[in-house]
Each structure stands twice: as structure tokens, then as C-alpha cells.
């Protein structure tokens, strides 16, 4: 496997090395100062030729920055004024025309938040509490969780180091509004000369004005909920190559033996190998990225074989639509006292891995083939490497068992992911590490350290070699299996990154976060190309549609949202779950989306209908033109399990739905 991608960032980093060193030096000096190790400090200073002034400068700079950040809320206004101002604004908005009312009322929440923070910052503790108590219930329900976090902050001292407040302080709350509504608002402020309000709007709000009709309640609801409001219009302008990569021709004919294995397959089917529906992909897609955009591992003979098998399986795929619902096979974990925390099923449905909260990972075989270990190196030498069944011979039959235990993590395993060739397994854990396991010798190969905090999610790319991870440290990282340093770090989320997912063409990574946004990152340059809002709480799972055009997300807000990657607009809002949605899966033909969660149910949604009803001709740059499908008829079926949470969903190549989860005994 060769690539030049991983070399990219290091070259760019070289000029920055000197600066980086200086910072380390300061850090060491600070440490020495703190622990009163004066002699060493002196020696180090001499050796590094740093004088005290430099050091002081550095410290001053830091202090300045933090002061400047905090001083944002400095204000000498009369605290009792705030209540009246807020009430005044509210009555103004209520008196507006209905068309504008909905849009204008979105401004109330950020203003409420910042007024409260200003009150707290200026030590008007009592006023702040009263202000909060009076108006918090007016805010939309999906803000209540953030508000309760806000309400924890009652003193100026608390404001330092609070993650949420930092986000409010450092970034502007984005509100999108039609020009008409905006002029309304502007006129009101100009007439009344409301200085504290104007200050807040100037300092903390970003009003993104668009030309067009004001949006409806439904349209606004669908995109609101983020910590910092909506995505700005400009961030979603970049072109996303959402098309699939051109598949290399699979011109390997499968062995006779394998054909025979399948039994009496009709000879007709063999001839129809060039099934038009499956060969369509090989045509040039204008939205597909160039094949060489991201260096991908070269395909080996084994991979071609794999693809041929997949293709053959795909031909036997059951067609699914609203009248033909899939069958669901559910794998239940019994006696899982240690608590199952993550499950993954390999693409060909032959293996199932589960992570447990005690740090163990277990792999089961879902086929009659038992799991075997590779022979010892000495024994391997004795094998005839030219033999046809060499892949059989390398395994030691004595080690065969139904499941294998992988021990290594010291904290709960939050995610497991199979490599596409089923030779490796990735697991990410509470202990801050990601481990790569070999499924041939059943042992740990690499321990990737980088996230210092729990790693919530890890996913292999569909082409192998690369994998993405997401963690509590508010970053998502992309790694290559042969580098122990990440090749990309995606920073930008304002809170934990809770899940990640590779685009089927491996050119993009989508991440979902506790800041309630979903971002799409470009692997090529590490930039964020889409910010998608709409979730009202932590995003726990993401899934790309098989054609790569749509992205579905589910989360703690019990919603499943579908976005169009071309525009970044919400296409559908699927309501039905009664608890956290923790897994999603598209059927192989993309006509159906299955979602499962902690409410012990699997729900099937009609994607075909959503995609066919989507109006592709309208100009989506104007948000009020976007139609959002939230009709309850999109829910095709609900299957309840018996107190078994649904942790993973997987459509087999023939469109059988597999669900997995632990049985939780109620007694």
C-alpha cells in the first residue's frame, strides 16, 4: 500500500517546527517555575538563549487574550433594564405580520442567552436568576437542555472554562432571515435606539440575509437547534463530489467450485453477468471525484475476488419498496452483564464484532465457518505456497471456535469497525486509544494514541487503509493504518464529536457532534465543506445513502434527518422514535432506511418516496424554497424487540436486514 497523502501534512509543517519548539520550551520553563526548580530553569534559559522578557511577553499575551474574551460581556447598563428590553422586543415581534413573526422570533433565543450572560458577568446575580426564571419557558423546547446548562452558570467565576459559554463567547450565533424581515427588525431598532440590544446583536449575532420569501415555521424548525444557530449560507457553497468512484472492472470469473457451492444456479444468470442496473456505475458520473483525488490502496487479487462475490450476491438482491418490506433477523446478546456498548457487522455478513464496557472485544462468526488462527511462522514455512488452497492451509484448525475474545482496552469500547477485507478490526475506547486487531492471528497490531480523551467512534473507509475517529477532544481524525500519527485532524466542532462516517467514495468524512451540527470534511485539504444543522441534540449516528448523494443522521433528539449533500439542505425529518436513535442503515438499493435505538424498536422509512418527491429544480440557495418532507406516511413499519436495544443495523448484500443488540432483563 503506497500513498503520498500521509506525507503531505508533514512537508507543510516543516516551517512551523521552529515555532512549535519555542512553545514547548515555554511550557517546560513554566513547569520548572511552577515547581520551583530554579537552577534547572536558569540552565535551560541559558542554553536556549531565552531571556526573561520573552517569557513575560508570552505570558502577557495569553492573559490579554483571555481578558479580551471575557470582557465581551462588560456592560454598565442598569440590570433592571434587561427585562423590559426583552419584553419589549417580544411584544414587537408578536405585533409583526405572521409572515415575519416566525422568522423574527428566532432572534429571541440568542438575545435571551446573551442578556443572561451579560447579567451574570456584571455580577447582577439576582437579576439574572429572575430574568432566567421569567423567560426560559418561552424558548423553543429543543433549547431547554442547553438552557439548563446555561442555568448552572450563576456566577462570573463559573464563566471561565465552561465549554458552552466559550462557544457562545467566541462565535457568533447565526440567524438566517429574509430581507423583508430584516428591514422590519432594523427599523424597530433604529426607532427605539435600544443600545444594549444593538450591542448584543452586533457582538454576538450574525444575521445572514437572503432575498426571497420568509420561511415557514416548518422550514425553520427543521434547521434550527444548533448551539450556534444555523449554518451560514457561504459555508455550504463549495462543490462536493458526492458521486461514486468508477469501479474497476471485475473481470475475474469465479471458480467452478464456488459456483457449485451455490448449488443449482440457473445457467441463465451466468450469462446475464452484465446486468445493466449493476453496471451503471461504471459510466462517468459528473459528480464523481477523479479516481486519483485521494490515493487509494491498489486492489489485490483477493479484492477482485471479493468484489466478484459481492456482485454475484447483489444480483440475488431482493427488491424493496413500500409494498415489499424486508425480513429482519435479529441477533440478541444474552447474559451480557458487562454491557454491550458497540456492535459492527462485516460487509459480507460473515462476522460480527461487539465491544463491551469492560474493555473486551468479541468477534463471532455468523456463518458455519468457524474462526481460526493462522499457523505459527515455522509451520507456515512448510506450506506449499503454490497450492490452490493456500488460503485454507495457512489456518490452524485446532484453534477453531465460534467466537474470539480480544483483550486490550482498559475502558469501555465505544465503537468497533471491520476493514472491508475482514483482515482487521478497529476498536475505540474510553481509555483514549484506538486499537487495530488482526483477524488472522487474533491479536492487537497497533495502538493509535492521539485522542487523549474517550474516542466515541471509529470507522474504516469503504476502501480500507484509511479510518476516521471522533472523540471527546472535539476533533475528528483520519488515520492511515500504517501511520501511528493521524494524517488529518478536523477541528471545528464546538463540542464532542460523537460519530463519524466515511463517504462511499472515501473522499469525504462526515462527523456528528454534541454541538448538534453535522459537518462534512474534505479528505484532500482537510477543510469543512458542509455544515448541516437541524438536529436538536447530540448526533449519534450517520449514514450515507448508497449513491453517495444523501446523508442521514440520527441522535438523542429522537429524530432521523436526511440531508442533500449537493446543497446541504434538510430533505426530510423523520419522527417516530421515542428514545435515542443509535444506528442507521440504508438498504443496498437505497430505497429504504432502517433506524434503531434505545426505544427497543427498528423503524423502516421510505427513502424512495423522499427522493422522488424532492424537487431538484428549485434554487436551494434560498432557504425558503427548500421543501422538507415530514409526512408520517414515510414510516413504513415499526418492529419492536423484547427489551432489546438495537445497537447495530446492517443490510446484507441481498437486502436482508440484520439487527443486533443486548437483551436487558427487566427483573
Amino acid at each position, binding site marked *: 500500500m503506497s500513498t503520498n497523502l500521509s506525507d503531505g501534512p508533514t512537508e507543510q509543517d516543516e516551517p512551523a517546527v521552529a515555532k512549535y519548539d519555542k512553545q514547548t520550551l515555554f511550557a517546560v520553563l513554566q513547569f520548572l517555575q511552577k515547581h520551583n526548580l530554579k537552577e534547572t530553569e536558569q540552565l535551560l534559559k541559558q542554553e536556549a538563549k531565552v531571556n526573561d522578557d520573552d517569557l513575560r511577553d508570552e505570558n502577557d499575551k495569553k492573559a490579554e487574550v483571555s481578558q479580551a474574551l471575557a470582557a465581551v460581556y462588560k456592560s454598565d447598563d442598569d440590570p433592571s433594564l434587561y427585562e423590559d428590553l426583552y419584553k419589549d422586543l417580544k411584544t414587537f415581534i408578536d405585533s409583526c405580520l405572521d409572515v415575519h413573526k416566525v422568522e423574527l422570533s428566532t432572534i429571541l433565543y440568542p438575545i435571551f442567552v446573551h442578556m443572561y450572560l451579560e447579567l451574570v458577568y456584571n455580577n447582577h446575580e439576582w437579576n439574572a436568576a429572575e430574568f432566567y426564571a421569567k423567560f*426560559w419557558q418561552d424558548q423553543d423546547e429543543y433549547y*431547554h*437542555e442547553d*438552557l*439548563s*446548562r446555561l*442555568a*448552572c*452558570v*450563576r456566577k462570573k467565576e*463559573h464563566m471561565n472554562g*465552561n465549554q458552552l459559554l466559550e462557544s457562545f463567547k467566541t462565535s457568533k450565533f447565526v440567524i438566517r432571515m429574509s430581507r423583508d424581515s430584516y428591514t422590519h427588525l432594523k427599523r424597530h431598532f433604529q426607532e427605539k435606539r435600544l443600545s444594549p440590544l444593538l450591542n448584543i446583536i452586533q457582538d454576538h449575532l450574525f444575521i445572514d440575509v437572503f432575498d426571497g420569501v420568509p420561511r415557514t415555521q416548518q422550514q425553520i424548525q427543521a434547521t434550527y437547534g444548533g448551539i450556534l444557530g444555523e449554518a451560514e449560507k457561504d459555508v455550504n457553497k463549495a462543490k462536493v463530489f458526492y458521486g461514486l468512484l468508477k469501479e474497476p472492472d471485475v473481470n475475474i470469473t469465479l471458480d467452478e467450485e464456488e459456483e457449485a457451492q451455490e448449488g443449482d444456479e440457473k445457467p441463465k444468470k451466468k450469462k446475464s453477468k452484465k446486468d445493466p442496473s449493476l453496471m451503471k456505475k461504471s459510466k462517468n458520473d459528473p459528480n464523481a471525484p477523479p479516481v486519483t483525488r485521494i490515493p487509494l490502496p491498489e486492489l489485490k487479487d483477493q479484492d477482485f475476488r471479493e468484489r466478484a462475490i459481492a456482485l454475484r450476491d447483489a444480483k440475488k438482491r431482493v427488491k424493496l419498496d*413500500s409494498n*415489499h*418490506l424486508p*425480513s*429482519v*433477523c*435479529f*441477533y*440478541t*446478546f*444474552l*447474559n*451480557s*452483564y*458487562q*454491557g*454491550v*456498548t458497540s456492535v459492527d457487522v462485516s460487509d459480507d455478513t460473515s462476522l460480527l464484532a461487539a465491544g463491551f*464496557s469492560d474493555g473486551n472485544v468479541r468477534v*463471532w462468526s455468523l456463518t458455519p465457518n468457524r474462526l481460526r488462527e493462522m499457523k505459527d511462522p515455522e509451520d507456515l514455512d512448510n506450506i506449499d505456497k503454490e497450492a490452490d488452497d493456500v488460503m485454507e492451509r495457512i489456518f490452524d484448525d485446532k484453534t477453531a471456535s465460534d*467466537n474470539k475474545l480480544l483483550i486490550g482496552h482498559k475502558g*469501555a469500547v*465505544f465503537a468497533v469497525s471491520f476493514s472491508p477485507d475482514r483482515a482487521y478490526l478497529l476498536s475505540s475506547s*474510553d481509555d483514549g486509544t484506538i486499537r487495530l486487531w488482526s483477524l488472522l492471528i487474533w491479536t492487537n497490531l497497533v495502538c493509535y494514541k492521539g485522542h487523549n*480523551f*474517550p474516542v*466515541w467512534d471509529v470507522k474504516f473507509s469503504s476502501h480500507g487503509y484509511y479510518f476516521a475517529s471522533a472523540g*471527546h477532544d472535539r476533533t475528528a481524525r483520519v488515520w492511515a493504518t500504517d501511520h501511528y500519527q493521524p494524517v488529518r485532524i478536523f477541528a471545528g466542532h464546538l463540542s*464532542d464529536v*460523537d460519530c463519524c462516517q466515511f463517504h462511499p467514495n472515501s473522499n469525504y468524512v462526515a462527523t456528528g457532534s454534541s454541538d448538534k451540527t453535522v459537518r462534512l470534511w474534505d479528505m484532500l485539504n482537510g477543510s469543512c465543506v458542509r455544515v448541516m444543522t437541524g438536529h436538536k441534540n447530540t448526533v*449519534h449516528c450517520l449514514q450515507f445513502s448508497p449513491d453517495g448523494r444523501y446523508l442521514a443522521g440520527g441522535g438523542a433528539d429522537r429524530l432521523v434527518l436526511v440531508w442533500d449533500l449537493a446543497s446541504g439542505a434538510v430533505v426530510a425529518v423523520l419522527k417516530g422514535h421515542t*428514545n*435515542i436513535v443509535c444506528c442507521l442503515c440504508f438498504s443496498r438499493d437505497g430505497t429504504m432506511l432502517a433506524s434503531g435505538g*434505545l426505544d427497543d424498536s427498528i423503524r*423502516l422509512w421510505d427513502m424512495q*418516496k423522499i427522493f*422522488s*418527491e424532492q424537487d431538484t429544480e428549485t434554487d436551494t440557495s434560498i432557504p425558503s424554497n427548500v421543501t422538507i418532507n415530514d409526512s408520517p*406516511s414515510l414510516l*413504513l413499519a415499526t*418492529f*419492536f*424487540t*423484547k427489551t432489546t*436495544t438495537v*445497537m447495530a443495523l446492517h443490510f446484507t448484500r441481498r437486502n436482508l*436486514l440484520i439487527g443486533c443488540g443486548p437483551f436487558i*432483563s427487566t427483573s
Partner: protein
Amino acid sequence: MTSESHVGSVLSSKSIKIIAESIGISGLADEAASFLAEDITYRLKLIVQEAEKLRQHNKRLKLTCTDFDQALQMKNVEPVYGHTNKDGYIPFRHASGGGHEIFFTEEKEVDLHAVVGDPLPKIPSDVTLKAHWLAIDGVQPALPENPPPYTKDLQKQEIFDTNLKVTANRAAKASHIEGNKHKHYHKHKEAVMLKNLATHELSVEQQFYYKEITESCVGPDEQKRSEALQSLQFDPGLHQMLPRFVAFASEGVKINAVQNNLALLIYLMRMVKSLLDNQTIYLDKYLHDLLPTVMTCVVSRQLCLRPDMDNHWALRDFAARLVAQICRNYSNNTNNIQARVTKKFSKAIQTENAALATQYGALAGLGELGPEVIKSCLLPYICILGERMKGVHEGTALNSVDKIAVEHIKRQLLKYLPPVLKSFHNSTETVDEFNVAYGYLGPLLYSMFSQKEKSLSSTTSSVHPLTTSRSSLQLTQRPPQIVIQQPSTPVPLLSSPFLNPSPSITPLNSRPLSSLPSTPTGVSGQKFVIVSQARPSTPITPQTPSTPLVKLVTTQQPSLSTNNSTGPPKIVVIQGAPKAEDNSGNRTLLSGSTTVQQSGNNISGNDTL
């Protein structure tokens, strides 16, 4: 979650002071305490928020201590150890030194010999993976691994909203049609809410099931019956057929009470019991049918052909327990079942010319409802009852039926009253006081009471059995046997273990049955259909078995022990072959505890779905 955090979840400065004192800092200033309280509240809330993240990622519904510990670790704080100690919340000893702070619990000395000698504890079962079909082509099969198709809540919802089912059906059809013209989908919004007629259709399988179950319940085969009853008790999918089953029971009782067919009444009551025990069905909307049915079996004047010999008392007891069970499970402020039932029973006790059997039933019914009811609704009328019993006992019209009834009533009083008397009489009271209070029954009650006193003082247990709700379960533990008298069989008369043989019950009398207190219809030559499909209000699909299931026919066999001219009734199942009823002389009716557990719900390991 949000509302909770808005309610003043704040540590008070008082608790801070107490905590401070516990670690040896006394005299904390008020200001310091309140500052600390506020700050600690803030820190705690932050950590709880982090712990909540961990809960979500652990995909659990409950926040646990480990989540909190991990949240502390995420904040680079050493977690608190030891609170998972199963010995309870032992205060931690705190020690520091060498730059480390540790918490530890005092450990007891353990005898190594004991540890080594003890048998090893059982190893918990390993995690296993088990596959089953959650759905086949979009339909959930009825497997033990799958939840019941109709949850109780859903059934309840359906009562209040008949539209639920209809809309569900229509939505399925509508989405089908809508597929073609989706461009106008927004015009398709439901315009008017119409209350729709919900049709009750049973599938062929369900009809067959219904037929099988009802036949087995009243048929001659005891094994089949217990299987059928078990199916009624545990099957989760009965919801659809419930109206039919209830109608079957209530119609059956109506007819058989008139026909005095004790055996069938008992079968039907057992069926009702199974339905009541089924945890997955929502019976509330059938109580209006069920309750009168069961009450009939408690207080009806006559439930069997020959009240002097047949053990209809057990049926009354059993039905009384069912009434109590219904009261316990379904009585609430709106329907007031218990109050209404109690009123009916106590009215029966007060009525002077009610049949003694009726009074016996009422007594049992009140007794099963618990000591409070006995105290307020039974004790005040003991005198009236006593007078009646006295009248029978000393009366000139020597009626053996009444005498038996009096004996039974006495026994019943003995069963229910002593624990209640105990609660407000003390042992110093004399016979005379009892005589004054309870009239004729005074001496009897006194002797019972004093016996109870003695036994209680020896056992010193003050919990009397009636207050526990388990009283109804006693039935299942002690299967009473009921004997149907079939004079045509040579089996000698047996009395059930339930009845202690007493001289008054022995079959002395040989009076012709035709002179018994009247039954409305003639006994001889009767031919009656028990139940076909009742409830015409619901449309019935043609396949429903509407043929009679059980018939009563008279046989003309020579009777051995009695010389009555009327032949005894016989039970014949029509659909099955009319088997010889030679074993019907001695049949266990109220067979007891369901020992056979529902098979198939045992998946490997300790967990079961």
C-alpha cells in the same frame, strides 16, 4: 430532564457545613459555606452533564456510578472509589502520603480455611449470541422472542380511540395509492376527524383457535382443558378474540346457572380465572360482562341439581376469590367496583329471606375482600345471620339442605372472622360479652376467638393471612377437588378433602330431587345448547363455529343409590365423538397450580427473552 434541573437542585450551605465537619473542619463561616455550596453545585452539574454523555455512548437508559466515575476521569479528577461496595456505603478512610491520595475501606480478616473450603460459586453464563426472526417480509411472527403484537397500552388506547386501528389500516392502503400522484401530497391532509366503526374480523386461524379453546375448556378431557387454560393464561395474542371469550363465559354462566349445571359453571370460572391471570390483555372494557358473570356464581340461590350433595360451595369460594381479584386489580375511583360489589354482598347478608346458599356466597365474597370489609360490612349483620341460622337449627321444618348450608356458613365464619375479631377484642372478654354483641353466634365466635388467641400467643405471629394479597393464590396451591355426583356410576360418594366429613353432610336423605327448591325449567329430558356465538353486535365472519359445543342429554340408566325418576344430566361434546362418560364420577375440577411453564421461552443461558 430539563424540568428537573430548573427545580432548585442546589446544595444547601447547611449540608456543606455538615460535610465540612465530617472531615474535621468546624466553624465554617456562613459566607464561605454558601460560596462553596454554589460552586460545588456548579461543578457537580458539569460532571453530571459529562456523565450523561457517557451514558448515551454506553447506550444505556440509566445513569450509573461508573458513568460518573468516568466523567470525573475525563475531567482529570481521581474518581471516588468504593461506592460500588456491596456492603453499603461504608465511610471511606482517607490516607495520603508520598504524593498520593487514596481512599480505602477497612477490610475484615478473612478465615482462609473457610474460603478454601467453600464450594466454588457458580460461574456466570458467558455471553451468547442468539438469532431469531424479528420480521418476515415485514410481518412480525409470533415467537416467544418477539414482544406480544398488542401491548396493553395499545389496547387501552384503542378503547378511547377507535380511529387508531382504522387509520392504521387506511394509512397502509393510502400510501399505496398515493405513490403515483405524490406531487399533490400536501392536499391529502385529513380534513375531518370522523369516528369510524371498527370492524372485528378474526382470521381463520383465530376462529379455529377459539373453537378449540372453548371446546377444550368445557369438554371432558381434563388434560386438554388444562392446556387450553394455560394457553388462555399465557398467550400474548388473545386481544383480538377477547370479546368472544368473554361473551362465551358470560352466556355460558347465564344458561348454566339456570340449568344448575355445576360442572360447566366451574369450567367457565376456571376459564375466567385464566383470562384474569393473563398479563398481556387489557380487560377493563369487558368487566361489565365479567363481573356479573362471576358474581352469579357466588350468590346464585342454586348452582347445582342437588344442593344437599353437590359441592357447589367450592365453586362459590372460587368465584368469590375471582371477585376479590377483580376488585384488587381493576377497582379505581371512577368505576368503584369494590364499593359496588361490597354493597351487593352485604345486601344479600341483610336480606332475611335470601337463600342460605346465597348468604354463604355473600359471606365468602366479603371475606375474600379483606379484614376491613369484614369489619365494616359483615360484623354488623352477624346477629341477623345468627338469628337465621338459629331458626334453621331449631326450626321444625327439618330441611337438610338448609342444615348443610348452616354448617358451611359456620365454617366460613370460622375461616374469616377470628383474625378480624382479634384486632379489636382482647382476650379478657367473656362469652357473655360476645353473646351480647353477636347473639346466637356469640358462643361460637367466642370459642373461635379464644382458640385463635391461644394459637397466636404460641406463634406470636400477628400477620394474619387475609391481609396478604396471596390469599387468592392459596387456591392454586391447594387444589380442591369437587365431586360430581353421577348416580349412574357405581363410585361411592366421596367428599372432597375440602369438606371435612361431618355427620350432617352424609348422604342420608333420599328425597326425590324433583321436590327441591324450584329450578325454573324441568330437569327431565332437558336438552340445551350452551353457547354458540353470542354478541351479535360485532359482525361475524361466516367461518365461526356456530354449532353447539356441549349438550346436556338425559340418559335412562338405572340409578343405584337414588330412586329418583329423572335421569342425571350428562355432558356430551357434540363435535367430538360422544364418548362414554364412565370416568365422570370423580373428576378434579379446580385443578391447581399451573406447573407446566410455558415452553419455548427458554433461550440458552440465564436470560430469557
